[in-house]
């Protein structure tokens, strides 16, 4: 595929073009907090400050709150209404490789056995336009998870920042189709492609946080019963939901029913394995202690999910590290896992 490019100053026009066909979502700021919002025209000012959002784009596919269906009660019983419709065609502009990869990781769960209609409908109708990073955070560690800040996998179109322009590559057929329909792109030169290569290397080099993600699996399995270790590393956790809610690969949810007078709705909302009541059942709560919950969280991402799906349920986006109120750091925890030999000796 021949690479194309688009001028930075033409991005706003491109978004306007696409808005005629799609509901377009772009990074935006609300009280200084970066989040995803509908493109409303104007200039693409977000290109100047955007690094990554606080709430990941998973929220566009698997919202923090969604109505599953409504119902009404009358003499005969319950009448169930259709769930609110999702948009026919919509587009996310600016998704980072870590978040795009995370959607692929999420899809494995939402397609496993039971096909989650809510997630899959949104995913099917959504087009992903990726944007490679130029300024990774100090908390980013995507390169340790087999991707890079400019990885083109998992999106339909990929943009790489080369200064006055963006290199544009079609990754899927959807992407090819989109490109073919706009006149705002031109062919990229060899020099452009070389600059893109440089930009990719530079971004990758800026990711300084590293963790041995592959080696974690064995250590986690061997050290599962190491209560001392888990108690020590979990002591400062306050069991809020920030890490799990802001994690682009976390997918746990809760279901609530609300009935007021004779009508109501069933809602799905985000839940967290970090909450003390997450595993509470009438008889007991198997993860009443905090250390068990944290152990589960880490093992789920780096051991159990790989066992089930051959992929680590973490893409190194670093939000959990950046926004944790007590600076709990999964990379530190993984790096301090006792080595196998150590454990054998201790036994």
């Amino acid at each position, binding site marked *: 595929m021949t690479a194309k490019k688009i001028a930075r100053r033409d991005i706003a026009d491109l978004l306007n073009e696409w808005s005629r066909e799609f*509901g377009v*979502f772009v990074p935006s700021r609300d009280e200084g907090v970066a989040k995803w*919002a509908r493109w409303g025209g104007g200039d693409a000012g977000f290109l100047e400050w955007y690094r990554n959002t606080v709430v990941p784009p998973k*929220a*566009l*596919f698997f*919202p*923090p*709150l*969604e*109505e599953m269906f409504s119902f009404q009660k009358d003499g005969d019983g319950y009448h169930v209404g259709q769930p*609110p419709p*999702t*948009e026919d065609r*919509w587009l996310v502009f600016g998704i980072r490789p870590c978040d795009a990869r995370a959607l692929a990781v999420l899809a494995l769960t939402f397609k496993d056995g039971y096909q989650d209609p809510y997630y899959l409908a*949104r995913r099917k*109708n*959504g087009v992903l336009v990726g944007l490679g990073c130029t300024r990774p955070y100090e908390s980013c560690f995507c390169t340790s998870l087999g991707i890079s800040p400019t990885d083109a996998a998992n999106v339909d179109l990929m943009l790489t920042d080369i200064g006055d322009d963006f290199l544009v590559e079609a990754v899927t057929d959807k992407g090819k189709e989109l490109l073919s329909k706009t006149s705002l792109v031109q062919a990229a030169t060899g020099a452009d492609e070389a600059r893109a290569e440089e930009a990719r290397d530079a971004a990758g080099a800026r990711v300084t946080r590293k963790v041995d993600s592959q080696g974690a699996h064995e250590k986690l399995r061997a050290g599962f019963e190491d209560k001392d270790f888990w108690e020590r590393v979990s002591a400062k956790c306050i069991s809020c939901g920030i890490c799990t809610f802001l994690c682009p690969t976390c997918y746990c949810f809760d279901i609530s029913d609300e009935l*007021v007078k004779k009508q109501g*709705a069933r*809602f799905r909302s985000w839940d967290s394995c970090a909450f003390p009541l997450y595993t509470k059942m009438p008889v007991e709560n198997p993860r009443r202690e905090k250390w068990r919950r944290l152990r589960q969280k880490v093992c789920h991402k780096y051991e159990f999910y790989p066992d089930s799906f051959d992929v680590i349920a973490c893409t190194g986006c670093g939000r959990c590290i950046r926004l944790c109120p007590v600076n709990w750091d999964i990379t530190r925890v993984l790096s301090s896992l006792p080595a196998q030999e150590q454990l054998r000796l201790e036994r």
Partner: protein
Amino acid sequence: MGQDSEWQPRLLGFLCRWCSYAGADLAGTSRKKYPASIRVIRVPCSGRVDPLFILKALRLGFDGVLVSGCHPGDCHYQTGNYFTRRRMAIIKRFLEYMGIDPGRLQASWVSASEGGKFAEVVTEMTQEIRELGPNRLFTDEERDNGTKTAP
């Protein structure tokens, strides 16, 4: 439930079992007239009323909340109503800061023998709430199901 569709104030009253609830009963048996605007929840003591109940009442759409207990010094549990007094003062101020009219939360001391006072309290409060208008604080059709931020 009225015949016409004109809005009528709906009040929720938390009445303490020993004084105010008995006072309300007396208002009934004495055939004192007062608007049929109040729904009553009996609590053992006005001190039982958690700020949560008041917010829940407003959330559900009640136009006004009344908390009524024994006069200071007469609480069946000695001190319960003193704590009510402190709590209600704080809640009213805080609600006002949030942008909720503090008139929607009212408190009264009504003893078991004050049937007349109870009727007066409800009559006056109903009129004041009528002037404040219906409670639309928590209604918001556009945002109600919270799904507008997602496609």
